[in-house]
Structure formats: structure tokens, C-alpha cells
């Protein structure tokens, strides 16, 4: 009955005053029986206090119920649970279902937007969507065509709509939104179409645009203060979003914002990362290309930047910086600090002070990472905070029309968007990773609005001289910058992890397994093969006092493109062609939610 009360009170609050909208969502997030936001909480920890299912009994887990989404493409993200209602989303056409958990998952309402199918081919790498958000009695859906829709959580009725971007110039959306205070903060996709990335806040009650912060451009566009906005402790200065670009290239400069967002209400800051600069051919965009590839800390109310940190200046490998920023409070050298931990596509895991933007740790989280020897950690150095690039693996130094071989990681990164989890109990991060390397050849491209703007060809293959698989699931110590344990996987791990107070960590595999491992040791405790490959994120909730674990299956996304037919290593010679596992030998399309529980 507790959940029902919370839900009712949420509705009452929203009717009373907007100022309480955020209190409602915070109450839902603080209740471990709910799964109120895609990221678990504002810290993006993906940690649940629930321990009914634990290391002792998880081996007995059974399927409790299932639900077909009716859609075949790649299913990222997860359902939400608010009160006794579960909200399930799908890839394009972005259907939302409200399911009654008190009535065997009966469909309370279904919302299916009308979208122009022309948006489909403008979406790089499948038509995924990473889920809906809840606040203030509303469900927020950010559609593929960049329309942001607020639905009445009880009825599914549209309360407002806002058009965030223009698919005709390649602007699309795959991400969820961040509902915070009286705003809904949203990003944009399209880095492979020459889109200039932006992050935008809408009024939660009306859908009116409040502010927009571009990733590059004049100071008034990027919402940076030349004196107060800092990069590694120094003011960024005037025109920081244009003065590391040549000519007008910044106008089609990329730096899109399609990852997960976290927030610290006490600091009034939210955090996200920006993607690759456009094009993939570095020769066409000399300079550091700020502020692509950047960790951003911005004010929730105004969008003004407090600090930036550019991880990969002048990207040469498509190492988007969009992965989630996980917030934690931990002791370093005897002092408790407010930290931000980020596992970047470039293969480095960064630990930062999230208040000041100070860089504390930057270490490789896969030993095969070879494009850099590491980050300069000396604040007195001219190259402080910059990664030292290894000439052999520099596609910029090797130049246009030269095939740079053996670069680790591949463009999909040591980790892509699939979110990691953090357990405050073990103080370890549980990270789904890719173990894939590449050859990369940049060449000249011309820009046409709404058309792919890539400019490089690449071949990807499992990391050479390793276990032969394309992924690992690792436990990471963010203070010492060390891998604690690593589980080799046949395919990239493309599923978001969940850690719980039951000493277990869940994740999914591309073959379709839901796995549970021990949080301390990584020992496998349970596996079940769901109907299709998993690229969704594990979530948990309670209903009538019973703990459930839910996961979306439905193979697709980048993984479904690159791995469907298997990878080949062109450097291995003909004998190895076809020698690597093909995902299509293990799984086929199919969108399904599988919910697990212990036997009654």
C-alpha cells in the first residue's frame, strides 16, 4: 500500500505547485521499490538497496512474467516503475505502454506517436531509444524525430509537445531526458551528419524552451563565461568554442549530446559529455575542436557552464565523450570528496572532483588501449590534462588516405553508452566493455545537410593477442585506477549493469543471457537465456513486497550492425576470415521484456 500512497501524493503535489515536482521524483527515486529514472538516481549509480534477491539465493531466480513489445529493432534503456505501473518503451516508432503490475501486466494505456519514417535512415546505427522519464505526474518521451512529449502518467494523454531539432539536417534522438527541478533537459544525436550538438532545457509544466547550450560556437551559444567557466582550473577565455576551429567548420562541428545525464542538486549542477567532432577525417578540422569530447558541468537553472574538461582534443578515432558521469562520495587521501567517475570511449577512466572540475585519476580500463601512453597529470605542464598520442596510432599524423592499423580501442570505444553501475558498499564500479580494435583510414568528404558526413573507413576486430572475445565485464577501483576483476565475454557487453545491496551485479550479454555475478569476486551465480540479444539495462523493483528484476531483450544498435555477420581481422590474412563468432549464429531480432523473481 505504501507505493500506492506515494503515487497518489505525487499527483496531488503536481496539482498543488510546480516547485514540488522535483520533490515528487526524488521521493520516488529514494524508494528502492520503484525504478523511477533510467539511471537509477541523479547520481547515475544504478545501485538498488533491495536485497531480497542476493548472492545466497540468486541461483534460484525464475522468470515471473514476460511482455512482447511488438517491435523488432534494438531495445536499449529499461522500463520504469512508478507506483503500481510499469512504463515500457520501444525503439522506433517509440511506443510507450503503461502496464498494471497489480493486474498481470494488463495494458492500461498505449501511446504510439506518428513519425515520418524518413527519420529512420538519418539515425546512425539503428533506431534505438533509451527510455522514458517520469516527474510531476508526467511521462516524458523524446522521440526519434526529436519531438519531446509529456504524457499524463495516468491516462497517456499528451500534455505538451516541443520540437527540439530538425531531422532534415540530420538531427535525431536516441537518448532519454533528465527531469530535474522544474525543467526537462534533453540532448541531440547526429554527429555523423554534421550536426552541431546542443543541450536544451524545457519548462516541465509547459514545454517552453528555457535555455539552449551548444557544444561549440560563440560564447553566447555555448553558455560559457570567459572568466568564470574553467578548464582544469583555468578560465576558458573568450571565444573558446570557436578559436580551436578553422573557419566555419564549428557550424557543422558535431559534439552531440546523446548520452546519460547526472546531477548534483546541492551544487545545482548537471553533468554530461559531448561527442566526436565532425567529420571523422581529422585533416578537415585542424585544432582541438573545443568543446567536442568534453565533460561538461552546467548550472541546472541557466545552463551556464561551470567547468569543462576536454578528454580527447582533436579526435582522430571517433571516441565520443558521451558516456555517463557517475557521481559518488568517497575518501581520497583521508578526505571525503564529491567525485565524478567516467568511463570514456577512448579507453581511459577518469575520476574528477565534480565541484571544481579537478582531474584526479586517468587510467586505462582495458590494458589493450594503445593510442595513448596516458594523460599528463602535472598541473604545471603545458600539456596538463592532455593524452599523449602514440604516433603509430595517430590517424591525423599518418594523414588522409593512409590506413592506420591496430588501433585499440575501436571507434565504438572500450565502452559505449551502455551504463556502468556503482556500489557504495563495495566502492567498486561495474563496467560493461568492448574489447575490439580497428584499422582507420580517413579521407576527404563533402558536407550535404541531412546526409552522412563521415570521412573515414574502418575495420573492427577482436583485440589481438587476448582471449579472442569482443568484450569484458569488469570491476573498477576509481581511486587507484585499477581493474579488480574482469570477466571475458564472447561479444561486446552492450547492456547496462545493475548493482544491488544483495552483493550481486546483473548484466546482459549480446547472446541474450541475463547474468548475475558476485559483487566482490565476479563469480557467476546465475544465467538465463532470454529470447534475443540484450542491449538494454537491468532494473529492479518491488511489487507486493516481492523483488523483481527486469530486462529488455532485442538485439540491434551498433552491436547489431558490426557483429551481426561476425568480424574479420584484415591483418590476419585470409585464413582467419570468418573465424570469429557471428552474432547471427546466436540470436535473432525480437523485443521482449523478461521479469525475474525468486520462487514463491
Amino acid at each position, binding site marked *: 500500500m505504501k507505493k500506492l500512497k506515494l503515487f497518489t501524493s505525487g499527483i496531488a503535489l503536481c496539482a498543488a505547485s510546480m516547485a514540488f515536482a522535483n520533490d515528487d521524483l526524488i521521493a520516488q527515486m529514494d524508494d528502492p521499490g520503484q525504478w523511477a529514472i533510467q539511471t537509477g538516481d541523479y547520481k547515475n549509480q544504478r545501485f538498488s538497496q533491495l536485497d531480497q534477491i542476493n548472492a545466497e539465493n540468486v541461483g534460484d531466480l525464475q522468470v515471473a512474467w514476460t511482455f512482447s513489445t511488438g517491435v*523488432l*529493432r*534494438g531495445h536499449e534503456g529499461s522500463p520504469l516503475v512508478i507506483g503500481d505501473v510499469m512504463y515500457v518503451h520501444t525503439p*522506433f*516508432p517509440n511506443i510507450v505502454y503503461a502496464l498494471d503490475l497489480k493486474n498481470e501486466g494488463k495494458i492500461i494505456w498505449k501511446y504510439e506517436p506518428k513519425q515520418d*519514417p*524518413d527519420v*529512420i*535512415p*538519418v539515425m*546512425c*546505427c*539503428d*533506431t534505438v531509444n533509451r527510455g522514458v522519464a517520469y516527474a510531476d505526474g508526467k511521462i516524458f518521451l523524446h522521440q526519434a524525430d526529436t519531438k519531446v512529449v509529456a504524457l499524463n502518467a495516468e491516462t497517456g494523454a499528451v500534455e505538451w509537445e516541443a520540437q527540439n531539432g530538425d531531422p532534415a539536417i540530420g538531427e535525431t534522438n536516441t537518448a532519454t531526458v533528465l527531469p530535474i527541478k522544474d525543467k526537462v533537459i534533453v540532448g541531440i544525436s547526429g554527429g*555523423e551528419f554534421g550536426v552541431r550538438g546542443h543541450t536544451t532545457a524545457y519548462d516541465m509544466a509547459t514545454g517552453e524552451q528555457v535555455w539552449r547550450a551548444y557544444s561549440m560556437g560563440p560564447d553566447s551559444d555555448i553558455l560559457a563565461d570567459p572568466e568564470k567557466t574553467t578548464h582544469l582550473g583555468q578560465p576558458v577565455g573568450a571565444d573558446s568554442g570557436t578559436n580551436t576551429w578553422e573557419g566555419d567548420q564549428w557550424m557543422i562541428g558535431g559534439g552531440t549530446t546523446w548520452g546519460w545525464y547526472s546531477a548534483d542538486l546541492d551544487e545545482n549542477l548537471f553533468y554530461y559529455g559531448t561527442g566526436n567532432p565532425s567529420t*571523422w577525417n581529422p585533416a578537415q578540422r585542424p585544432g582541438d575542436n573545443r568543446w567536442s569530447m568534453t565533460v561538461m558541468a552546467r548550472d541546472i537553472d541557466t545552463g551556464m557552464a561551470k567547468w569543462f574538461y576536454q578528454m580527447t582534443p582533436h579526435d582522430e578515432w571517433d571516441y565520443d565523450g558521451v558516456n555517463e558521469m557517475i557521481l559518488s562520495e568517497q575518501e581520497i587521501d583521508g578526505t571525503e570528496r564529491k567525485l565524478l567517475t567516467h568511463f570514456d570511449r577512448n579507453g581511459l577512466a577518469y575520476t574528477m572532483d565534480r565541484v571544481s572540475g579537478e582531474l584526479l585519476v586517468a587510467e586505462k580500463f582495458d590494458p589493450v588501449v594503445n593510442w595513448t601512453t596516458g594523460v599528463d597529470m602535472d598541473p604545471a605542464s603545458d600539456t596538463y590534462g592532455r593524452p599523449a598520442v602514440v604516433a603509430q596510432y595517430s590517424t591525423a599524423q599518418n594523414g588522409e588516405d593512409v*590506413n592506420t592499423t591496430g588501433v585499440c580501442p575501436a571507434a565504438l570505444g572500450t565502452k559505449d553508452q551502455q551504463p556502468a553501475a556503482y556500489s557504495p558498499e563495495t566502492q567498486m564500479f561495474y563496467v560493461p566493455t568492448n574489447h575490439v580494435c580497428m*584499422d582507420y*583510414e580517413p*579521407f*576527404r*568528404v*563533402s558536407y*550535404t545537410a541531412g*546526409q*552522412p*558526413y*563521415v*570521412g*573515414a*573507413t*574502418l*575495420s*573492427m576486430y577482436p583485440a589481438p593477442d587476448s582471449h579472442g572475445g569482443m568484450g569484458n565485464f569488469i570491476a573498477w577501483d576509481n581511486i587507484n585506477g585499477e581493474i579488480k576483476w574482469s570477466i571475458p565475454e564472447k561479444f561486446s557487453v552492450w547492456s547496462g549493469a545493475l548493482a544491488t545491496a544483495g552483493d550481486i551485479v546483473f548484466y546482459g550479454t549480446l547472446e541474450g543471457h541475463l547474468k548475475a555475478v558476485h559483487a566482490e569476486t565476479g563469480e557467476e551465480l546465475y544465467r538465463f537465456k532470454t529470447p534475443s540479444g540484450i542491449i538494454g539495462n537491468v532494473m529492479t523493483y518491488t511489487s507486493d513486497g516481492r523483488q523483481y528484476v527486469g530486462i529488455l531483450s532485442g*538485439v*540491434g544498435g551498433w552491436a*547489431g*550492425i*558490426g557483429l*551481426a*555477420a*561476425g*568480424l*574479420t*581481422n*584484415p591483418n590476419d590474412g*585470409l585464413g582467419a*576470415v*570468418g573465424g570469429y563468432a557471428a*552474432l*547471427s549464429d546466436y540470436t535473432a*531480432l525480437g523485443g521482449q521484456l523478461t521479469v525475474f523473481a525468486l520462487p514463491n
Partner: protein
Amino acid sequence: MNIKHCTIALGLAVGLPMTALAESQVDPAIYEVAESEDGRHYTEDGTPTFNIAEDGTVDWLTFSGFRRYHAECHVCHGPDGEGSTYAPAVKNSAIDLGYDQFFEVVVNGRENGNSVMPHFGDNRNVMCYLDDIYVYLKARGLDAVPRGRPAKKEAKSDVIREDEDACMG
């Protein structure tokens, strides 16, 4: 000469999954080189085609097609034209559709429910390399070139370079 090339290609195809069409099942007229000019190769009816030497050296267009395919097309159609979880293996399309229809679909796109091929008619990164992509996929569809990056290639001819510069602007 071309008959010999095909024999080598067939030899390479042994042991690979039979998702590609074997050349023996296909009328040689659709791929055999009848005419060559300035590094470009054509069949009897004037359709662009690939040319692969005995040592595996591919003509420039086939190599260029590999490159452009893996920039513009592979994000849907997968590496080496092998298809993805949602888009077809286009290595077969170059043969099934024929040159004219292949050209028409790439320029104008087509739609079948939620399966949508975009139109590339105004994209110079595709249109300036349409013959390149076509001959590459035709070679892939016939297993005349293996998966992956062609190991050896002919140099780009002056005429091809001039045409490319003129097209890309």
C-alpha cells in the same frame, strides 16, 4: 585472362558461407571485363565491373568502393556488405538489381514500412563514387574479393583523379 581470375576467386570462396552467389551460377557477361579505359573496367554491355589480378590486386574502383561503402553504407548494411540485424546484405543487391536499378535505389531511396533506404542523390560522397561502390559490392556478391580491406590495389589513374576532383568540387 578474366576466366583465370574467376577461377582464383572461386578457389577463395571455398569454405566460406554460401551467402554469396557463386560465380558459376551467374552469367559471366555480368562481370567479365570486355573493355578497359583509364583504370576503369566494363562488361560487354558497358556496365562497370571489377578487375582482379591473379595476385589479388584489385582495380582502384573496387578499392575505392570498399572505402566509401565503409563510410556511407556500413552503418546500416554492416561490414563487407554482409547485412545487419535490420538491413539487407547489399553485396547481393548489386547482382540481383543490376546496375540501373541499383543506381535508381541509391539515388532515390525506397521505403517498405519501417524499413527505409534513404536517398543519396544529393550526397557527393556517395554519388561521386557510385560506380566504385557498385563494382565493390558486385565483387563481394560474387566472392571475387574476400571480406575485409583488399590487400593490394592498382594506383588511381589520372583520369579517375580528375573526375573525382571535378565531382567533389
